[in-house]
């Protein structure tokens, strides 16, 4: 019985855990943490169970909520594409849950100086669980309006988690709130037009209803598609709509940025791919509209803008946020290339980029946890002070640059092949330039980290040898090491991932 209920369990478990922590956790912050880790571990097991079910059966799982058949009620559809995204989200949230043991109590300030019960820590974990429920829900759903509701719950809890940072976090989050709400409104407006034109909200049903000559020529449908695209682009911070992301993620607390940076943008990219190919069709998007002529150059612009902006940043966390903006360009561009290799690269990059963003954010988070800031200078001599963290950062950096056998190489390989096949030379150039710029950025950091300060060392050589090893606590190191090794594993098993999952999800109409 539990096998058939797994699709809903992954969504309801974090929701119930949020409520349980909310109702029981006001006495003891340790209890919050243990309940939270327990919930996330169960979630990860369930996500793996689903992945296994999809791979062994080879077909999509349909789950009807309330027992109502598909177009009348809401259904969850889990196929090869989203079972992979679900597993990625569950893995990231479990790793960050362990990582948060020390960082959340240290970073989330108390309500008052005299407060005995840390309400904010409890509320932090409640929002965390709600975010996970929202993300998994919107990944699993097969209903266009349900997707909107869960997008709202995911972004609302994101606002709360980001605002719990220091200094300018409130202001940056407020700007994100305005942008995010505008994006959500565009999405809702687009779904509204689709509903007026077709009378349905179920994705599979919409797909068949939109597959007529009248609908494909309709201006209303075209504009609905444009609005849905703008909505998800705002949510994923695609280039002209990226303004909120660097500010909001830089000033957020370490745990929040580790959790949100890998998940929010990647899940939004998944949503875009799902809507492009499961509500509209490859034929409609690429042949009838032909917007890839505009969107792929936009993606190239996003990559170049993100990479060049990252080059100029002094603060490492801010630098990483610009790299996130560039990576969104990779995935959007790949999905819009309109061929199998581009699609494979984009989908594989959702998994790979989720893990490598997590890896570098965790490493920088550990450095700023120990040294108190995240500037380039704080990395000075880091290889001696924090050897494990530095190696983790090194692996993450190699993946970002795209050095084999890390996963970053394989996604770039498919994207470059796809761009070559589609004749999108600008995008191809942007991909290669971005790898080069990433190499410059990360080798600059690695150089700073590897060599001690020569100015200081000069004349006091014997002092530098006595640098004390001051590694981050074990609760942070273990998830970091697991993440770093997963980058290599995802790279080594890239062929299996692509053959068993991604190839099965390629939508009809792509060549």
């Amino acid at each position, binding site marked *: *019985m539990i096998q058939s*209920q797994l699709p*809903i369990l992954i969504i*309801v478990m974090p*929701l*119930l855990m949020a*409520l349980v922590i*909310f*109702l029981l956790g006001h006495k003891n912050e340790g209890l919050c943490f243990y309940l939270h880790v327990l919930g996330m571990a169960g979630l990860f097991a369930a996500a793996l169970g689903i992945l296994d079910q999809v791979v062994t059966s080879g077909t999509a799982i349909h*789950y*009807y*909520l*309330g*027992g*109502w058949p598909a*177009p*009348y*009620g*809401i259904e969850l559809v889990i196929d090869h594409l989203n079972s992979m995204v679900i597993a990625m989200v569950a893995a990231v949230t479990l790793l960050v849950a362990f990582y948060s043991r020390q960082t959340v109590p240290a970073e989330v*300030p*108390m*309500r*008052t*100086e005299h407060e005995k019960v840390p*309400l*904010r820590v409890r*509320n*932090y974990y*409640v*929002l965390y669980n*709600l975010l996970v*429920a*929202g993300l998994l*829900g919107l990944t699993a759903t097969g209903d266009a*309006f*349900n997707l909107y*509701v*869960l997008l*709202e*719950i995911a972004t*609302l*809890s994101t*606002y*709360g988690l980001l*605002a719990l940072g220091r200094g300018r976090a*409130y202001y940056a989050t407020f700007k994100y709130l305005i942008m995010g709400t505008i994006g959500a409104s565009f999405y809702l407006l687009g779904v509204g*037009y689709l*509903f*007026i*034109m*077709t*009378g*349905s909200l179920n994705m599979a049903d919409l797909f068949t*209803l939109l597959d007529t000559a009248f609908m494909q020529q*309709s*201006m*209303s*449908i075209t*504009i*609905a598609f444009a609005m849905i695209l703008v909505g998800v682009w705002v949510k994923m911070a695609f280039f002209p709509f990226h303004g909120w992301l660097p500010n909001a993620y830089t000033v957020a607390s370490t745990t929040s940025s580790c959790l949100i940076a890998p998940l929010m943008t990647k899940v939004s990219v998944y949503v875009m791919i799902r809507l492009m190919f499961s509500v509209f069709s490859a034929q409609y998007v690429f042949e009838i509209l032909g917007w890839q002529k505009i969107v792929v150059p936009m993606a190239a612009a996003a990559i170049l803008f993100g990479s060049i902006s990252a080059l100029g940043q002094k603060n490492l966390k801010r630098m990483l946020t610009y790299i996130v903006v560039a990576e969104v360009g990779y995935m959007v561009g790949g999905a819009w290339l309109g061929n199998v290799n581009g699609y494979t690269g984009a989908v594989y990059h959702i998994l790979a980029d989720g893990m490598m963003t997590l890896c570098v954010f965790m490493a920088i988070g550990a450095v700023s946890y120990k040294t108190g800031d995240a500037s380039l200078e704080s990395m000075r001599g880091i290889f001696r002070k924090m050897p494990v963290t530095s190696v983790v950062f090194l692996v993450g950096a190699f993946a970002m640059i795209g050095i084999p056998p890390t996963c970053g190489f394989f996604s770039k390989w498919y994207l470059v092949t796809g761009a070559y096949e589609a004749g999108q030379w600008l995008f191809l150039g942007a991909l290669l330039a971005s790898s080069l710029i990433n190499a410059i950025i990360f080798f600059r950091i690695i150089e700073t980290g590897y060599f001690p300060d020569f100015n200081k060392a000069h004349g006091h050589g014997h002092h530098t040898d006595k640098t004390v090893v001051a590694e981050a606590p074990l609760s942070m190191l273990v998830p970091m090491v697991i993440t770093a090794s997963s980058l290599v594993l995802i790279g080594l098993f890239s062929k299996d991932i692509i053959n068993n999952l991604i190839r099965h999800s390629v939508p009809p109409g792509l060549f």
Partner: protein
Amino acid sequence: MKVIAALFSIVLGVVLLVAANDLPIWGDPESPVSVHLSSYFIEHSVEQTSVPNFVTAVLADYRGYDTMFETAVIFCAGITVMTILRRSHRLRKKNVPPRPVREGQDIIICSAARLIVPMMQLFALYVLAHGHHSPGGGFQGGVIFGASFILLALAYDLKTVLSRLKEKTMMLVSGLGVLVYAGIGVLCLFLGGNFLDYSRLASILQVTEIEARSHGILGVEVGVALTVTCIMLSLYADLASGGEMDEGL
């Protein structure tokens, strides 16, 4: 900047007008919305759920999963506002401008509020319970119930209300509301159905499967009302007092 914003608004307005080009005529009985799914709900909701108001049937049963998450959205908004507004005293003294201090209470307003509040609360329960037959349900009933507390807070002061309904209780009940909704869903799961398949409650409630759907809807509506009531008041109290929970407006 203002010029750019104005230009964007005009362009968006034109785009929306163009998009209206192909839309079916207003109120057209042959439009896709009227014929595709709506007719199914109109024809079958009574026989499948025994709820005469098919808006309620769609909201709380056919699409009950959406409604559960809408309740969770309200809960999430409430605790986000609460979490953000509670800063340390030191920070707050620096940042928050002084609020106007209220002097005394007006006897006319207080007396009127004393008359209105019990009526409002009774009416809220009626709206909640009568959602099966007429416009109403958990959201509407909850809003009216929450508004009755806000009226008390406006007429007397926030302390009076919070002495009757403690903040801790309020937050506890708001969580319980979502738990009632999700709990009913999980109960259906344990009874062998899918999540939120209320027909499975028949074995517990000793009624037919169709009536069990109707009772299940009432159960989740109560959950929605609990959350909406408490979050309404909590949002008012937090925003009006800037998170101090002492006095505001």
